[in-house]
């Protein structure tokens, strides 16, 4: 492997990127997927985390152009030079340019160049790597068509990038397969959300300055979104994740980018369709589907694909009922019921939340189904509801899952 003279590198772990334009050779979603996967290659072997920006100046600006394109290195038409990228620094530093005169593809055929492979190579330069003379290394300068489904960096690539950034932090590991479906069992004391009575209110912690991650037992703690994931429960707020596993008593603290580097923080809603081993994340008027770490191809999609009217620009909360295979979406004071079987909104919706859910007379920030019961979060409270009778059972603090 090699680095650039003086070994320039990003002096931070959170690096941003922005896709400035697209090649007409591929679907936009396939371009985004290829770029995201290329970043994931590098984030999986370093402490680096990559966040995609949709406007403004990002560290790594990605674009397609042909011939002269504003820097000193014009492209040369089909073949020859495929792309180039600049080592870390401000301005053009880090930027990656792809020759639009090439035929870009998401496949590994011989009549086009696989964008994921070339992008992964170029982003190696954007992070500070030079070329490698090791045949088969990603940073080898000559393009080699190969199977990308389970593509792995060579040890030479890993050695090179870790000279610049070191190995990954102890990154959280998602369960690799769906846990055996949880039978609704009596919650153990550690799991059951404890009912808050005044004497049990956690002592008011008044930290000297507000920590970036709210305290687990902050009585004012609220959440953006909550979902199950392969038997675990993930609580989202900003870029932070609290992870609750039925197998460990304590709560794990992570960031969204440690699981899905290319997803931007600040989800509005999330839910799991357990039978498909799929979790859907919602932000503004788009949604993504992930399975474990990987973002499914073709996402993000507009929420109107699910059947929302264009007047709905974002949703507040969502929860999937594993028993009825229906998903409830909450928007303002109304809710929709979506059939996962027919993949369409049910007739007669939206309906008023208050009309069907006794005791829930306000908007819903987040929603969760656990062991057959539903939990609707509003501000720092959560409302436990028996969905069959739609009766409110009890009200607790939102963070009562954290053994406060």
């Amino acid at each position, binding site marked *: 492997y090699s680095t650039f003279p003086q070994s320039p590198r990003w002096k931070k772990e959170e690096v941003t990127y922005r896709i400035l334009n697209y090649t007409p050779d591929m679907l936009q979603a396939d371009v985004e997927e290829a770029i995201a996967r290329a970043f994931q290659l590098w984030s999986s072997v370093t402490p680096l985390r990559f966040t995609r920006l949709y406007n403004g100046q990002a560290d790594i600006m990605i674009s397609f152009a042909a011939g002269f394109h504003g820097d000193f290195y014009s492209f040369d038409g089909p073949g*020859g030079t*495929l792309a180039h990228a600049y080592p870390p620094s401000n301005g053009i530093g880090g930027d990656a340019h792809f020759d639009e005169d090439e035929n870009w593809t998401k496949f590994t055929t011989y009549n086009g160049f696989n964008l994921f492979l070339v992008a992964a190579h170029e982003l190696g330069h954007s992070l500070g790597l030079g070329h490698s003379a090791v045949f088969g290394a990603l940073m080898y300068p000559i393009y080699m068509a190969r199977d990308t489904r389970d593509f792995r960096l060579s040890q030479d690539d890993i050695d090179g990038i870790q000279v610049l950034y070191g190995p990954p932090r102890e990154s959280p590991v998602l369960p690799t397969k769906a846990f055996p479906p949880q039978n609704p069992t009596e919650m153990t004391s550690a799991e059951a959300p404890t009912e808050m009575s005044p004497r049990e209110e956690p002592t008011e912690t008044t930290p000297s300055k507000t920590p970036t991650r709210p305290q687990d037992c902050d009585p004012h703690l609220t959440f953006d979104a909550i979902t199950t994931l392969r038997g675990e429960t993930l609580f989202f707020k900003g870029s932070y994740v609290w992870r609750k596993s039925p197998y460990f008593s304590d709560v794990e603290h992570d960031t969204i980018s440690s699981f899905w580097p290319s997803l931007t923080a600040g989800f509005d809603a999330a839910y799991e369709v357990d039978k498909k081993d799929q979790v859907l994340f919602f932000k503004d008027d788009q949604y993504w589907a992930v399975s474990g770490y990987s973002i499914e191809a073709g996402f993000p999609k507009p929420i109107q694909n699910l059947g929302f009217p264009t007047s709905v620009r974002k949703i507040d909360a969502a929860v999937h009922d594993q028993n009825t295979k229906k998903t409830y979406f909450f928007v303002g004071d109304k809710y929709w019921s979506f059939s996962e079987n027919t993949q369409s909104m049910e007739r007669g919706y939206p309906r008023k939340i208050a009309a069907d859910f006794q005791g829930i007379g306000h908007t819903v920030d987040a929603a969760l189904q656990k062991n057959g019961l539903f939990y609707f979060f509003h501000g720092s409270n959560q409302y436990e509801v028996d969905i069959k009778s739609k009766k409110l059972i009890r009200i607790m603090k939102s963070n009562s899952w954290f053994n406060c």
Partner: protein
Amino acid sequence: FPLATEKEKEDEQFAKKYLENFYDFKEEKNSLFKSKNLNHMAEKIREMQSFFGLEVTGELNHKTLDMMKKPRCGIPDIRS
């Protein structure tokens, strides 16, 4: 020496451009001594052959040209 064929001239031009792009070759345009440039170019060809694990001859042979014509990244392999 037999006059270089048109094809050989083209190949030489291509190789010169390649070595300028990726091996920091700088031809001295107004050098009085053509041989100096030839030696310098041969040295750069050797550098490129060594990088790609080709037989290091300093000559612009078929295998070396083939390697130069493969699709690749636009970043230099060797830089000052």
